C-alpha cells in the first residue's frame, strides 16, 4: 500500500519537477502570450529550447526546386504568430500577438494603412479638434456588427467605460487616463448615434493613435453582458462571438488552430481580398519553421535562433520590420553595490559600465537581424508629438558604434572618479580595487544569456566580475519588479508613438520602474521628485513645441543616472512565401492580413 501512496505523491511532485525541464519552451511561450511588449523579439530569442532545429531546412527544397514549398489555396492565408492567445476580448488583451488578432477581427475609429499612416476606419474623417486641443469630435460611418446589429457611438461609449471599470481589470485601462471624467464615467458625449464628442484632460499629441489601439475597439454589449457573469472576457473565449472587423472566428481548437472567415457585415468587406485566415497556435519554433518549409504556412514571424544568420540577407523570403522599442539593461539604483557612494559616484560607476559594453558585437552576433545599436533610450524613429522625429543626430548620449574596447580608458577614468583604483595586468586588462562582484538577472533564453555573456567579458576587462543568473520567466518578473537584483535585462516595445510612453516607465509610482528610481531611501540613489514633476508637466503642457524640449530633458535626466543602459532598438523578423503579397505591419508590431493576396 505504501508503494501506491508513493506513486501518487510522485505524481504530485512531477508538477514541480517539470518546471525545471519545461522552462525554456515556456518562457518563450509566456513571453509570447502575456508579455505586453516585445513579444516577437522575445519569442525568437527565448525559444532556443528545441534542440533539433538543424536539418529542417534541408528538406525545404525537396518539393519545390525554386525555394520552399508553396500551398495552392489562394483564398486562405496560413499564419503563425504565437501560441494560444489568453484573451480575444480587445479590452483585456495585452499581448502584441493578441493585438494582431484584434486588428483583423475588430474595427476601431481609426487604423493604419500600409504606409503606416493613420486613416479613418469607422470614423468618417480625422477628428475635429477644438482650438484648445481638448475636445475631439468624431463622426462615425454607419456600420454593423457581424450579427447584423447596428453599431453606434453608444457602443463605443459602453466599450470604453467597460475598460476603465476596475472590475474589468484591463491592463491597458491607463491609456484612457488622458480622457476627462464625469464621475466614474468617461467624458464622452453622443449628441446623436453617429457622433462622439470626447473631452480630454489636456491636449494630447497622440490621442489619434490611441483611437487606433485595440483597447479602444468596440465590443458588442449584449454579447458581453450575457456571457461575462463571473469573470470578464468569457464572451470571447470560444469561436463564434460577435465582432465588427474584417474576419469572424469560425473555429478554435485550443493550442492547435484558429480559423477566421471573412465577415460579410464588415464595413469594408468589398475590399477584403483574403477569404480566410488560418492560424497555427504554437510557440515551438522548430515546428513552426518546419511547417513553413513544408508549405503548410505562408507567413511566420519566428524562426529558430540558429537559423537567423543563414537566412538574413540570403533567403529573399526572410524580412525585417522596424519596431518602436528598446532592448536595454537596467541597474537597481538602491542596490548595496552603490552603498557608501554619492549620487554622482554611483551614476559614474553605471555610466562607466555603459561605456564598456560592445554593442556592435551584441547586435551582430546575438541579435543577428540587423538591429541598430542604441545610443538613447527613446527608440529611433519615434515621433516627437510635434510633427517631427524625436531622436535627432545630436541627441545621442554616447557613440554606440565604439562603446566597448575603444572606451576602456574613459570607463576607467569614470571609475577612478567614483573612488576606484586599477592595477594593470599587462595584457590589456586591469584589476579593480575594491573588487566589484555582481549578478546579472535574466530570464531563460539563449539570446538573453548570450548578450549577458558578451557583457560579462566586456566588464572583465576592468576586472569587474559579473555572474549570470537566469530564472524562470515568472520568478524573473517578480524579482525584477521588486528590485531583487543588481543588474537585469530589460526591454520595452512602445504601445503608441510618443516618447512619453517610454519615459513614464520610470516615475516613482510606475509599476514598471524596475530600476527602483525614487523608490528607496538610499543615499546613492538620485532624488527623483524632479523627474516625477517633469513627467507631470509634460502630460499637462499645451504647447507641443515646448513639450518636445521637456521630453528631451526627461530623457537627459534618466540617462544621467546611468541606471538605464540601452543596447539596441528592437526589430521584428518574418518569413513570407513569394506568392503572398499585401501583408503589412505597424511599428507597434500589429499585422494586417485582410488586404493580402496570394496566387
Amino acid at each position, binding site marked *: *500500500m505504501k508503494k*501506491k*501512496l508513493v*506513486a*501518487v*505523491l510522485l*505524481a*504530485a511532485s512531477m*508538477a514541480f519537477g*517539470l*518546471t525545471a525541464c519545461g522552462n525554456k519552451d*515556456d*518562457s518563450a511561450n*509566456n513571453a509570447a502570450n502575456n*508579455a*505586453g511588449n516585445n513579444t516577437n523579439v522575445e519569442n525568437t530569442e527565448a525559444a532556443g529550447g*528545441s*534542440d*533539433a532545429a538543424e536539418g*529542417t531546412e*534541408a*528538406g525545404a527544397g*525537396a*518539393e519545390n526546386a525554386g525555394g520552399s514549398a508553396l500551398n495552392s489555396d489562394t483564398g486562405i492565408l496560413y499564419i503563425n504568430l504565437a501560441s494560444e492567445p*489568453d484573451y480575444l476580448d480587445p479590452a483585456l488583451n*495585452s499581448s502584441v500577438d493578441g493585438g494582431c488578432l484584434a486588428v483583423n477581427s475588430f474595427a476601431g475609429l481609426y487604423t493604419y494603412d500600409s504606409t503606416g499612416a493613420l486613416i479613418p476606419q469607422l470614423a468618417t474623417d480625422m477628428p475635429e479638434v477644438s482650438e484648445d486641443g481638448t475636445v475631439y469630435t468624431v463622426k462615425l460611418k454607419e456600420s454593423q456588427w457581424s450579427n447584423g446589429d447596428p453599431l453606434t457611438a453608444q457602443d463605443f461609449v459602453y466599450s470604453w467605460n467597460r475598460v476603465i471599470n*476596475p472590475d474589468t*481589470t484591463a*491592463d491597458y485601462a*491607463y491609456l484612457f487616463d488622458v480622457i476627462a471624467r464625469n464621475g466614474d464615467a468617461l467624458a464622452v458625449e453622443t449628441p446623436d448615434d453617429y457622433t462622439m464628442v470626447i473631452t480630454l484632460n489636456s491636449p494630447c499629441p497622440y490621442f489619434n493613435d490611441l483611437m487606433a489601439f485595440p483597447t479602444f475597439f468596440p465590443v458588442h454589449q449584449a454579447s458581453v453582458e450575457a456571457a461575462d457573469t*463571473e*469573470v470578464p*472576457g*468569457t464572451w470571447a*473565449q470560444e469561436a463564434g462571438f460577435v465582432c465588427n472587423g474584417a474576419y469572424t472566428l469560425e473555429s478554435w481548437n*485550443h*493550442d492547435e*488552430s*484558429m*480559423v477566421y472567415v471573412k465577415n460579410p457585415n464588415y464595413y469594408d468587406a468589398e475590399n477584403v481580398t483574403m477569404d480566410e485566415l*488560418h*492560424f497555427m497556435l*504554437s510557440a515551438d519554433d522548430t515546428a513552426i519553421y*518546419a*511547417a513553413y*518549409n*513544408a508549405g*503548410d*504556412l505562408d507567413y511566420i514571424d519566428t524562426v529558430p535562433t540558429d537559423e537567423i544568420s543563414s537566412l538574413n540577407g540570403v533567403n529573399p523570403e526572410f524580412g525585417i520590420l522596424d519596431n518602436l522599442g528598446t532592448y536595454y539593461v537596467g541597474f537597481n539604483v538602491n542596490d548595496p553595490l552603490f552603498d557608501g557612494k554619492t549620487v554622482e559616484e554611483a551614476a559614474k560607476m553605471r555610466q562607466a559600465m555603459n561605456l564598456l559594453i560592445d554593442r556592435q558585437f551584441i547586435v551582430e552576433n546575438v541579435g543577428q537581424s540587423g538591429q541598430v545599436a542604441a545610443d538613447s533610450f527613446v527608440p529611433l524613429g519615434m515621433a516627437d508629438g510635434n510633427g517631427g522625429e524625436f531622436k535627432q543626430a545630436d541627441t545621442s548620449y554616447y557613440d554606440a558604434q565604439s562603446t566597448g574596447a575603444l572606451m576602456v580608458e574613459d570607463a576607467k577614468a569614470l571609475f577612478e572618479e567614483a573612488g576606484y583604483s586599477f592595477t594593470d595586468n599587462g595584457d590589456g586588462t586591469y584589476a579593480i580595487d575594491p573588487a566589484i562582484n555582481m549578478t546579472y538577472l535574466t530570464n531563460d533564453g539563449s539570446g538573453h544569456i548570450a548578450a549577458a555573456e558578451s557583457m560579462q567579458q566586456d566588464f572583465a576587462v576592468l576586472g569587474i566580475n559579473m555572474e549570470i543568473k537566469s530564472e*524562470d*520567466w*515568472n*520568478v524573473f*518578473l*517578480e*524579482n525584477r*519588479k521588486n528590485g531583487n537584483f543588481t543588474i537585469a535585462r530589460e526591454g520595452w516595445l512602445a504601445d503608441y508613438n510618443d516618447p512619453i510612453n517610454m519615459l513614464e516607465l520610470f516615475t516613482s509610482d*510606475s*509599476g*514598471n520602474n524596475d530600476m527602483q528610481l525614487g523608490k528607496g531611501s538610499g543615499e546613492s540613489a538620485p532624488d527623483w521628485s524632479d523627474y516625477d514633476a517633469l513627467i507631470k508637466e509634460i502630460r499637462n503642457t499645451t504647447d507641443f513645441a515646448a513639450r518636445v524640449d521637456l521630453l528631451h530633458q526627461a530623457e537627459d535626466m534618466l540617462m544621467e543616472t546611468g541606471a538605464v543602459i540601452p543596447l539596441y532598438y528592437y526589430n521584428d523578423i518574418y518569413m513570407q512565401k513569394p506568392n503572398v503579397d499585401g501583408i503589412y505591419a505597424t511599428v507597434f508590431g500589429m499585422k494586417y492580413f485582410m488586404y493580402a493576396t496570394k496566387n
Partner: protein
Amino acid sequence: MGRYLIKRVLLAIVSIFIVSAITFFVMNAIPGGPFNKEKATSAEAQRILEERYNLDKPIGEQYVLWIKNLAHGDWGVSLHNGRDIWSEITSRFAVSARLGGMAALVAIVLGLILGSIAALTRNRWPDRSIVFFTTLGTAMPSFVLATLLLLIFCLKLGWLPVWSSSSPNYVLPIIALSVYPMAYITRLTKTSMLDSLGQDYVRTAKAKGVPGWKVIFKHALRNALIPVVTYVGPMVAYILTGSMVVENIFTIGGLGSTFVTSITNRDYTLIMAVTLFLAILMVIANLLTDIAYKLIDPRITFE
C-alpha cells in the same frame, strides 16, 4: 474482493486528499505569482484580482475554500484567462486520451507480438533484429524521435503536413508516443516469456500433446503477462495525460502542455485541477492493475 476494493477506494481518497494538500501548499510556496506580467498590472487591478480569487486570504483558508468549492463540483476558473477549469481539463483530456489511447494500444499489441516472436526465435535473426530495434527505441528520447519523424515524413517525403487546420495528423505523434513503451513491453514480454517457456507446466502441456499455439497463448503468454501488466497500468495513465514535448512538436492541444504552462503561469486553480486529475488517473490505473493480476493469475489473493 469486495471488502478489498472498498478498502482500496477509501485509501485512494486519502491519498488524493494528501496529494492535493501537498500540491496546494508547495505551489503557493514557490516564488512567482499568477498576475506577474512584463507590463505590470496596476496595483488596483492586482488587488481586485486577488480578492476575486480569494488570494488575499490566509493560505489555510484558501485551501479550505478550494476543497469546499470542489465538494460542490466547482473547479473554479483559470487565474490566467478566466476560462472554466472543468471544461478546459475535459476538452484537453479528450485530445490527449484519444492520442494516448491509440498510442497505448499500438504499444501493447505490437509489444506483446514482438516480444513473443523474440522469445520464440531466441538468438535467431528475428530475435536479433527485434532486440536491435527495441534497444534503439528505449534509448531514443521522444523529442529526438518526434523531430526525426517530422523531418523524414513531413519535410523530406512530404507525405504528411507538419500542421493542418483541417485534418491534423495523428500518425506521427502516435508513433512518437508509442515507440518507447512498445520497446519496453517487447523486452518485458520476451524475458518473462522465456522464463515461462522453461517452466514445468509448459513442458507438461507439450507432453500432453496440446497444440503449439495453445501452449504459447494459453500457458506461456498468460503467465508471462504479470510483469507486463505491472508496467502497463501506470504507463497507460501516463500516456493518456499527454506529453508536452510531443504535443508541442506536433501542435496538439492536449493536457501535457496545459500542465506545464499552468505551472509556468502559476495558474493555481489549473495546477490543482490537473494534478488532482492526474493523481486520480494514477490511482485508478493502479487499482485496475491489481484487479488484472487477479484475473490473470488466480493464485494471487488480495489478503
